[in-house]
């Protein structure tokens, strides 16, 4: 019975090709825009969160404001932190600004950063040439330096800087490595920095405390637990004073960014869904016209023994058929639009099963909702009036 109804619906739709196509167009546009918008936003979200992840999703940063009694962290605090679970390594940052000199050429206001071996181990792409800072440098407070790409351009143009000397804040250092240029986008740009062992930095810059610490995680999924553990170490260290430090979890930021983006894609899809509703009204309109045209046919079918339910089923199926076919065309069209857009903007393209189901489900639902009323009207036609209408 269902099969017969589907066959009849198909024949009726094919009979009025142009009209069926125009009716479907509303659904096609609605579904295509939903698919395209969701897919493009999803692709953009993935691309951006990938970039942010590269910045360090596996990293928690502790910034210390300190208390009057204890202005920063010392080596012992660092050691305590690094002994907590789920921690791969701890890297302090000590930074200051000073002038640097090579062969009489002066660069002012250069950022000097004190780092340790962990910093280089965690991201091997940092170093371009030479060697990283090692434990020996840290223990002996060696006067060695690794320089950023802008420093090379400025002071060592046309020279291999490795092994050359550099005067920082009046003391002479040996260049042991150079850094890869980092993208201007990232907030941790090292292009205009020089990096020295943090122990050396504490001595030469006269810094007693560490004010910033990067904690690298084994498992980012456990970041929240690790944050709790860190508080367990830091709170007693600062004597439970408020606002002594802040903990910045990169994973949190990515999470909130992603939830923001999914809100946005939901919003866009909602707007696109309005066009689906308009498409649905188009279908309803066509169904009503079709029923008026086929009044005699409906009357005859009833006289021949079609039950009201049967008539209703046939028209609902016709409506679902129209909107589903429209939905499938829209799916392909929307996919193509998203694919082209992704290629042009340079973001990833991934059409998820959920998106496809959403589109197909939505268009089917439109068919049922907007087909129901006309189909019901058809099923309630009085066969006598219907037959007389000829």
């Amino acid at each position, binding site marked *: 019975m269902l099969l017969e109804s589907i066959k009849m619906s198909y024949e009726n739709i094919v009979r009025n090709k142009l009209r069926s196509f125009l009716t479907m167009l509303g659904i096609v546009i609605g579904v295509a825009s939903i698919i395209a918008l969701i897919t493009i936003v999803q692709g953009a979200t993935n691309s951006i969160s990938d970039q942010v992840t590269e910045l360090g999703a596996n990293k928690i940063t502790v910034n210390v404001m300190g208390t009057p009694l204890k202005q920063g962290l010392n080596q012992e605090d660092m050691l305590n932190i690094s002994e907590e679970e789920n921690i791969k390594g701890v890297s302090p940052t000590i930074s200051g600004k000073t002038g640097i000199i090579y062969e009489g050429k002066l660069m002012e206001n250069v950022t000097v950063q004190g780092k340790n071996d962990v910093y280089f181990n965690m991201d091997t792409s940092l170093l371009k040439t030479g060697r990283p800072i090692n434990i020996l440098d840290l223990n002996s407070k060696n006067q060695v330096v690794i320089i950023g790409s802008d420093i090379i351009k400025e002071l060592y143009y046309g020279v291999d800087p490795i092994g050359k000397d550099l005067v920082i804040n009046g003391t002479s250092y040996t260049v042991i490595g150079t850094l890869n240029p980092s993208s201007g986008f990232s907030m941790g740009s090292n292009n205009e920095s020089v990096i020295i062992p943090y122990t050396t930095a504490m001595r030469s810059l006269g810094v007693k405390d560490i004010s910033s610490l990067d904690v690298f995680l084994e498992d980012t999924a456990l970041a929240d637990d690790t944050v709790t553990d860190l508080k367990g170490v830091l709170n007693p260290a600062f004597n439970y004073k408020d606002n002594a430090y802040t903990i910045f979890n990169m994973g949190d930021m990515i999470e909130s960014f992603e939830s923001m983006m999914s809100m946005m894609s939901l919003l866009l899809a909602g707007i696109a869904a309005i066009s689906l509703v308009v498409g649905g009204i188009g279908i309803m309109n066509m169904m009503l016209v079709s029923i008026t045209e086929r009044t005699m046919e409906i009357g005859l079918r009833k006289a021949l023994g079609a*039950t009201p339910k049967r008539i209703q089923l046939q028209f609902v199926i016709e409506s679902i058929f129209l909107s589903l076919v429209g939905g499938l065309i829209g799916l392909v069209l929307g996919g193509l639009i998203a694919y082209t857009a992704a290629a042009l903007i340079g973001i990833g393209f991934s059409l998820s099963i959920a998106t496809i189901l959403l589109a197909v489900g939505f268009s089917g639902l439109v068919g049922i909702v907007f087909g129901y009323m006309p189909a019901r009207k058809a099923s309630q036609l009085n066969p006598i009036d219907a037959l007389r209408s000829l």
Partner: protein
Amino acid sequence: MAEVLNMQNISKSYYMGEEELEVLSKVNLTVNSGEFLSLLGPSGSGKSTMMNIIGCLDMPTSGKYLLSGNDIEDLDETELAFIRNKEIGFVFQSFQLLPRLSALQNVELPLIYAGVSSAERKERSLNMLDRVGLVDKTKNLPTQLSGGQQQRVAIARALVTEPTILLADEPTGALDQKTGAQVMELFEELNHDGRTIIMITHDIGIARHAKRVVNILDGHLSEQEVQ
């Protein structure tokens, strides 16, 4: 002989605004299996209303109507649809074939609603088209058939479910005299084979083909003796 149709005190009224218009007035009619009956009356006599009530397309205002023993009053829309499918074969003045379906598909229609499988449907429809002499026109659309042929397709469609009553409304009204006579010949043959036929007409010449003629005038029935 078995009684297939029994009408007792059937009345039907319509309201034209405030005014009540009685189209059928306490009509009594009994039809036995195998009868060929004509309801003869001029237009406005109430014969179309009789046809609608006999065909279960309309309900009487009062009175009792038994069709094959079923009390029509007790039935809902869905049950009425089943009764129409099983008990009644309609033949209309203007044939009422679906223009986009072939002769065979038109004949198959009532069997679809009877839930008959597609293979059996085809076989039974072909047999019936053979019976009305159109076995070589099964693939033709109605527009490719003459009026007489179209009415034969309609008769095949009416008979394919093996209904209790063949109910014909002016079956020759849209046909010329010669074709009309052929259709009446077919009716006589079918009745000879045992088919119960009720035919509604205004044409006394056509009505005479039936074994029994009942006059209808202003909503009242009167039996007429046939010579």
